[in-house]
């Protein structure tokens, strides 16, 4: 109940601030760079609030941290191949198997921590959001498809996210450095990143086809271990 109240309050605050912003800048002179950054941080805050308030066990925390670390090391292992990394695929699979909450945390943590090593910048919160959303949506897909999913389905999902990820990442550049903010400047910004997006999407497809058969059973087995509860046998004295 308290959790929902916090979330509702945050959403109400956002709506109120958006209303105030449009009241003060009705002619479109709103500082979109600042507004988008603010809304983004608020959105990330909501996801983190959910994680903070949820009943997360030590095992779940450790699994999330381990998968995020694997995603980071994936960035290093495939360093010779620009934008061709297994990171998105690992986040996707984590979300698919362990659910939206764990998926978001694996993605957001991988972005936050890897940038501690590779360099922080304005791209960090956007990366956190993009990878976090990969995990969340994969979690939703997991609820629908369950264990019946095929490598091709995950490859298709990864293909879509290869491009969506790039478009989310381009949003900040577009909103904070382009004028006018119209469809032409938006698609031109995205055209610029097209080679990188294609490489990203191709990587997701290739890794899904190469690794799903091995990785999915491993992660499903760990999920079963995670949800297994050991019951104590009652002795005569305790009865």
């Amino acid at each position: 109940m308290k959790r929902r109240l916090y979330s509702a309050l945050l959403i109400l605050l956002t709506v109120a601030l958006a209303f105030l912003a449009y009241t003060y800048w009705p002619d479109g002179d709103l500082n979109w760079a600042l507004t988008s950054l603010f809304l983004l941080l608020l959105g990330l805050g909501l996801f983190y609030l959910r994680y903070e308030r949820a009943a997360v066990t030590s095992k779940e925390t450790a699994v999330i941290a381990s998968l995020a670390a694997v995603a980071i090391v994936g960035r290093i292992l495939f360093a010779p191949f620009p934008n061709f990394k297994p990171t998105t695929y690992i986040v996707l699979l984590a979300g698919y198997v362990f659910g939206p909450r764990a998926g978001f945390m694996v993605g957001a943590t991988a972005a936050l921590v890897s940038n501690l090593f590779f360099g922080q910048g304005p791209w960090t919160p956007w990366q956190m959001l993009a990878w976090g959303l990969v995990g969340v949506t994969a979690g939703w897909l997991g609820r629908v498809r369950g264990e019946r999913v095929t490598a091709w389905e995950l490859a298709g999902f990864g293909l879509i996210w290869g491009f969506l990820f790039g478009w989310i990442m381009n949003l900040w550049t577009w909103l904070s450095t382009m004028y006018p903010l119209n469809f032409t400047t938006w698609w031109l910004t995205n055209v610029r990143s097209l080679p990188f997006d294609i490489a990203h999407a191709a990587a997701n497809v290739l890794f899904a086809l190469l690794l799903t058969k091995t990785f999915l059973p491993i992660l499903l087995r760990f999920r079963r271990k995670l949800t297994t509860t050991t019951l104590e046998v009652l002795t005569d004295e305790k009865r």
Partner: protein
Amino acid sequence: MNRKLFSFGSGPFFRYHAATLTVYPMLLLFLAVALQHPIFLLMLLAVSVLAVWRGGGLSAFGTILRYAWPLLLLIVVLNVLVSKDGATVLWIGPNLFLLGKIRLTMEALLFSGVMVVRMLIVLAAGALFVAWLSPDRSLGLLGRIARRSAVTAMMTTRLAPYLAEQSEQIGDVLRTRGVRLDQGGPVQRIAARKPMVSVLLISALEGSWQVAEAMEARGYGMGRRTSYTRERWSRRDGLAWAAMTAAVWLTVQSAWSGWSEFVFYPRLIGWPFAGGAWIAALVLGTLLLVPPLFAKRSRR
């Protein structure tokens, strides 16, 4: 390579509270995004570069610039090619597919330049944050507001170097078995790395069970959490926070009184000596210089 990458915490230790070291780069970022007057932004850029130098992050900033220059170039090219709202035409170019007639205007040129300056400040703020605050200290600070998320992030920072080292060992083992990781075409090299990722995943997941058991053995999740911090507030912090607060107040005041107002389109308004822009920018720069100038390095 990995050892160098994960050598965080070996940089200088600054005697500011972690909150001061976190908020200052964020303030630079916020001001860069909030302001668009060229004088203000140029002043901010000068302060940011000086702060990066004081924070020991000049080489990191150089590395970021090496990767970021295509983006900066793109900002200029796209703004100049697409924007047709400027009134001062410098050159009229040919008709281009999808873009129409190219009109190079002074307004678009200046706007793109200012946006590049904005991006440079943001990049400098990022370099400064990484240079003068170790991940341990920044995550420790996060732990005060978001405990569980901070624990997850801290565990990841510990596990990533360990797994990277393991991946090197797995690579060595694979090489001794005749796997050529760095030879052949891209597809062969990617396929050769597949066993590395598989072994890493299993190893990481198995390890996570041990980590969870160790956490529980130390009382994780058993009631109220105890904490210990080595972060101390000093007079130096007080001075830095006073300067930052004054900088925020001055920015709001400048916006209110129109000093920082600058209109690019259709014609430049506010250029170059409008109102108190120069004085306000100078005072803002001086205030923002206080935290890096009073930053003191010390031995751990």
